[in-house]
C-alpha cells in the first residue's frame, strides 16, 4: 500500500512537471504581452531593458525556463505581471477562501440531494418519482450553469429578494452561487446513483436479504445502498472538474473574489505567471483528488482492499 502511494506521488510530480513545461512554452508562443507594447516602445532602450530585466524577460527562453522550474521546485510560482508587486502564491492564498467554501458547499449539496434523489428514483423505478428525478438530472446537465445563475439572480435575488444577487459580503451571499454550482453535481450524482442502485437491486444478494424476512428498509440500507454508493466515489473526480470549470464562470457572474475569477482576469490581462501558476494549481488539485478517490475506493470496497495487501 505504501509502495502504491509512493509510486502514485512520483507519477504526480512527473505529470505536474510536464504540465508546467507545456504551459510555459505555450505562453511563450502566445501573441501579445502583459505589458502595453506602445508604452514600452516609447521607453529608452536602457529603461526598457531594465524593465524587462525586472521580470527576467531579457534572458533567452531556456534560461527563463530553467529559472521558472527552479523556483517551482522551491514552491514559488513567480511574480504577477499585472497585480503589481504581488506573488502568485499570495494571490492564490488571498483568493482561495471563497472558492473553497463554494466548492465544499456545492459538493455537499450535490452529493446529499443527488444520492437521495437517485435512491428514491431507483426504488420507485418507473413511477412519477423516477421521472421527476430524471427530469432534474437532464435539466441539470443540459442547462448551462451561467443561465441558471442568471435565472436565480433575477427571480430569487431581484424579484423575490430572498438572497443577495452578487458580491461577497457575508454568508448569505454564498447561497445563489452554491445552488448554481451544485445543480450540475446533483444531476450527475442522481443519475449515476440511480443506475447503480437499479443494478444492485437486481442482484441475487438483495433477494437473499429479502428472503430473510428483514424489513424493506434494512434491505435497502444495509444491503443495497452501500453497494450502490461504492462506484459513486469513482465519479467524484469528474464532479470536481465540473465544479472547477463551473467556478470560472459563476465567480465572475456573482463578482466573487475567488480563484476562478482570478483565473479569468489573468487570462484577460495576459498575466502569464498567474495563468501558469493557476494552471498548475488546478492540475495539482485535480490529480490529488483522483488519488484520494482511488485510496477511498480501496478502503471502502473490501474486495479491493485485499488486493492491495497482496
Amino acid at each position, binding site marked *: 500500500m505504501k509502495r502504491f502511494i509512493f509510486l502514485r506521488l512520483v507519477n504526480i510530480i512527473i505529470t505536474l512537471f510536464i504540465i508546467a513545461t507545456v504551459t510555459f512554452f505555450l505562453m511563450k508562443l502566445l501573441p501579445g504581452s502583459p505589458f502595453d507594447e506602445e508604452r514600452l516602445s516609447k521607453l529608452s532602450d536602457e529603461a526598457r531593458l531594465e524593465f524587462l530585466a525586472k521580470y527576467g524577460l531579457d534572458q533567452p527562453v531556456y534560461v527563463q525556463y530553467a529559472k521558472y522550474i527552479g523556483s517551482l521546485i522551491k514552491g514559488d510560482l513567480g511574480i504577477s505581471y499585472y497585480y503589481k508587486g504581488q506573488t502568485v502564491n499570495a494571490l492564490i492564498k488571498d483568493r482561495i477562501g471563497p472558492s473553497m467554501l463554494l466548492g465544499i458547499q456545492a459538493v455537499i449539496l450535490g452529493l446529499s440531494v443527488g444520492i437521495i434523489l437517485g435512491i428514491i428514483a431507483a426504488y420507485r423505478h418507473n413511477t412519477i418519482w423516477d421521472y421527476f428525478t430524471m427530469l432534474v438530472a437532464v435539466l441539470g446537465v443540459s442547462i448551462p450553469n451561467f443561465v441558471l445563475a442568471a435565472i436565480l439572480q433575477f427571480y430569487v435575488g431581484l424579484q423575490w429578494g430572498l438572497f443577495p444577487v452578487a458580491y461577497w459580503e457575508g454568508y448569505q451571499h454564498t447561497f445563489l452561487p452554491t445552488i448554481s454550482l451544485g445543480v450540475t453535481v446533483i444531476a450527475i450524482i442522481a443519475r449515476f446513483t440511480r443506475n447503480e442502485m437499479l443494478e444492485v437491486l437486481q442482484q441475487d444478494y438483495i433477494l437473499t436479504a*429479502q*428472503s*430473510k*424476512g428483514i*424489513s424493506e428498509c434494512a434491505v435497502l440500507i*444495509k444491503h443495497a445502498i452501500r*453497494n450502490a454508493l461504492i462506484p459513486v466515489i469513482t465519479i467524484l473526480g469528474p464532479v470536481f472538474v465540473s465544479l472547477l470549470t463551473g467556478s470560472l464562470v459563476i465567480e465572475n457572474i456573482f463578482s466573487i473574489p475567488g480563484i476562478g475569477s482570478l483565473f479569468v482576469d489573468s487570462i484577460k490581462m495576459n498575466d502569464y505567471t498567474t495563468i501558469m501558476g493557476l494552471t498548475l494549481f488546478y492540475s495539482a488539485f485535480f490529480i490529488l483528488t483522483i488519488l484520494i478517490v482511488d485510496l477511498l475506493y480501496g478502503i471502502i470496497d*473490501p*474486495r479491493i482492499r*485485499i488486493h492491495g495487501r497482496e
Partner: protein
Amino acid sequence: MNTLLTIKNLHIHFETHVGKVQAVRGVDLSVKKGETLAIVGESGSGKSVTAKSIIGLLPKRNAMIDKGEIWFENKNLLTLNNKQMKKIRGAKIAMIFQDPMTALNPTMKVGKQVMESAIKHLNLSKKEARNKAVELLNLVGISNPETRLNQYPHEFSGGMRQRIVIAMALSCNPKLLIADEPTTALDVTIQAQILDLLKHIQKETGTAIIFITHDLGVVSNIADSVAVMYAGKIIEKGTVEEVLLKPNHPYSWGLLKSMPNLDTKGKLYSIPGSPPDMIQPLKGDAFAPRNEFALAIDYDMQPPMFKVSETHYAATWLLHPQAPKVDFIRETQDVLMKQDDKISSIDNNVLLEVKGLSKYFYLKSKQTLKAVDNIHLEIRRGETLGLVGESGCGKSTVGRTIIGLHEPTSGEIIYDNTKLTRHNQRQLTKKMQMIFQDPYSSLDPKMKVEDIIAEGLDIHHVVKDKKERKQRVEELLKTVGLQPHSASRYPHEFSGGQRQRIGIARALAIEPEFIVADEPISALDVSIQAQVINLLLKLQKENNLTLLFIAHDLSMVKYISDRIGVMYLGTIVELANSDELYKNPLHPYTQALLSAIPNANPIVEKSRERIILKGTLPSPVYPPSGCRFRTRCLLATDACEKTPEWREVETDHWVACHYA
C-alpha cells in the same frame, strides 16, 4: 405423515413488453413434514416462479398471482399482508439460491449476514447471535468458524459460499427450506459435498426441503418425491422411484431418455422441438406438439391428472382407459439395445500432437497462474477426445491454446506433422475451428446470421461472389437443421439451442478438419442438449471431423468421446479409452469424479457408496508441489511430494500417479 405445505390451483402471469406470459398455470402440490420434494423442469417451466411465490418474493412490478391458495400452518400465505409474511419469511420458510457467487452481499462480513435473520426473528442479542452463527458454520462444515465469521464473501470458494448461504437459511430452524438449483453452479465433486450436507442437515433438523433442479441424477440422489413441471403445469408427480423408474408422462420419458447414462450407446434420444412460447394462450396439452405419442384429443383438451397409484399422478391422455397402451420400459430398452452405430473411422494416424504444453498467465500482482502445466496429448484423425475436469482445471485453456487464441508459454503443438508457429497459424486455423460455450454471448448481436456464418468464408476468401456466399450459408443452415431463410435474421430471434446450431454452422463454414468444442451444451436445457449432441455426432460422421470435446458433464463426455483425458489443476492425470476409463479408473481423482456423478436410478443412487472428496481445488497460483492432487487424495503419502511420472500403464491407458 402430515402435510406441511399445500399449493392449490396456483396461476401466475408476468406482464412483459411483448405481452402477458402465463408462467404458472394451475399448480397443485403438497409437501409433507421432513420430506424432500424435487421440482424438475427445464428453464421457463415455472419451477422457480412457483417456489418464489411460496415465500412471497415474486418481482412486485410485473408478477401477478391470478388465483390459487398456498396453505402453510393453517394460513393461506397469499392472503397475508407484508408484515405477517415477514414473520414467516426467513423464520419458518427459508430459501437458498442458485449462484453462491452472487447470493452474498460482497461488502458485508459473512458473520453479519448469517446473524441477520436470527437477530430479527429470534430476538437474540449480538453475542447470542454470534454463538449461533458459530454453531451454524460448524453444522455446515466450515472449519475455524470464529475467524471466518469476520471475513468477506470473496475470501471463500464457491462451495464454501454455498455452505454459508445454507447456514444463513438455517439460522432460525425453518420448517421448510426452498433450494433453487443450489448445486447447478458448482462442480460435481463440490455438488456431492453439498448434497450430502443437505441430507445431513435434514436428518439433524427435520426440515422439509423443496429442491428445484433440472438434473435427474441430483433428484434421484436427494428426493423423496418428485414433481415434473412443463410449461407452467405439473405434469407428473409421485415418489422418486415411481417417477424415475415408472414414469407415465411422455415428457418424463423424454427427459430420462435424453440423458445419457454411462452405458448409453447409439443415437441419443431427443425430444423434438422446443418448449412452447408462453405468451400465446395454450390449447390442449402444451407438450402435444413435441409428443410422439400424442393423441387427437391432446391438441384440443388439457388432460386432467390421472391417478396411477395412491401417490403417483400424471397428466396425460395416455392414461385414459380408452387410450392405446404405450410401454415406456420397452421403448427405452429399444433405444438402449440399438447397437453402437458409431463405427469409428479412426485410424491410428495422429492429427494433432501436443508435447509438453504449458500456458502461464502472468498476473498483475507479479504472480504466475499456471493454467496448463506440461501436458502431453495426441488426437487421432476422426476421433473425439473428451477433456474433463472441474472449473479452473485448465481444460478450456488447452483448447484455446491449441487453436491459437493463446500463445503457449512453452511446448509444441504439431498439427498434421507441421509445427504450429506464428507464421503458419493463419493457414492452419483454416483447418481448425471452435464452438463456444455460451450461445448467447458468442454471437455478435448486431450481425445477421448470414454474416456471422460467412465471416470465415470472407476472411479466407473461400467464396467467389455474393451468390455463392448466400448459397453456402443456406446449405450450412440446412446442415445444422435450421431454415435457410434464417440467414437474414438476427441472433436474438433464436432460442439457446438454435443459437448453438448457428455457432456450429459458423464453425463448419470453412470445412475444418478439427473442431474444439468448449462446453458446447452446458448452457442448454436437457432436452435441447441431446439435439445438439446428436447433430455434432452426425456432422462428425459425415465430414470425418476430429473433435476435442471439453466438458464437465461426465456422462455426456463418456457418451460422445472415444478417448477421455481427465485434468486436474493444469495437468492431465489420466487418459484412456472411454469405456476403459469408466470401467477401470486408475487415478484416485478419476475415481472420485466418477463416483460424484449422481445416477438417475434412485435405487442404485441411494444404495451406492460414494467417494466424497474433501476440500476444494487449490489455487493454480500456488499449486501443491509434487502430485497436485495430494492435498485432497485419500491415498496420499510422503512419496507423493515427488511429481508422478506420466506413464502408459496398459496399452493406451496413461496415468500420472505413484499408486496406479
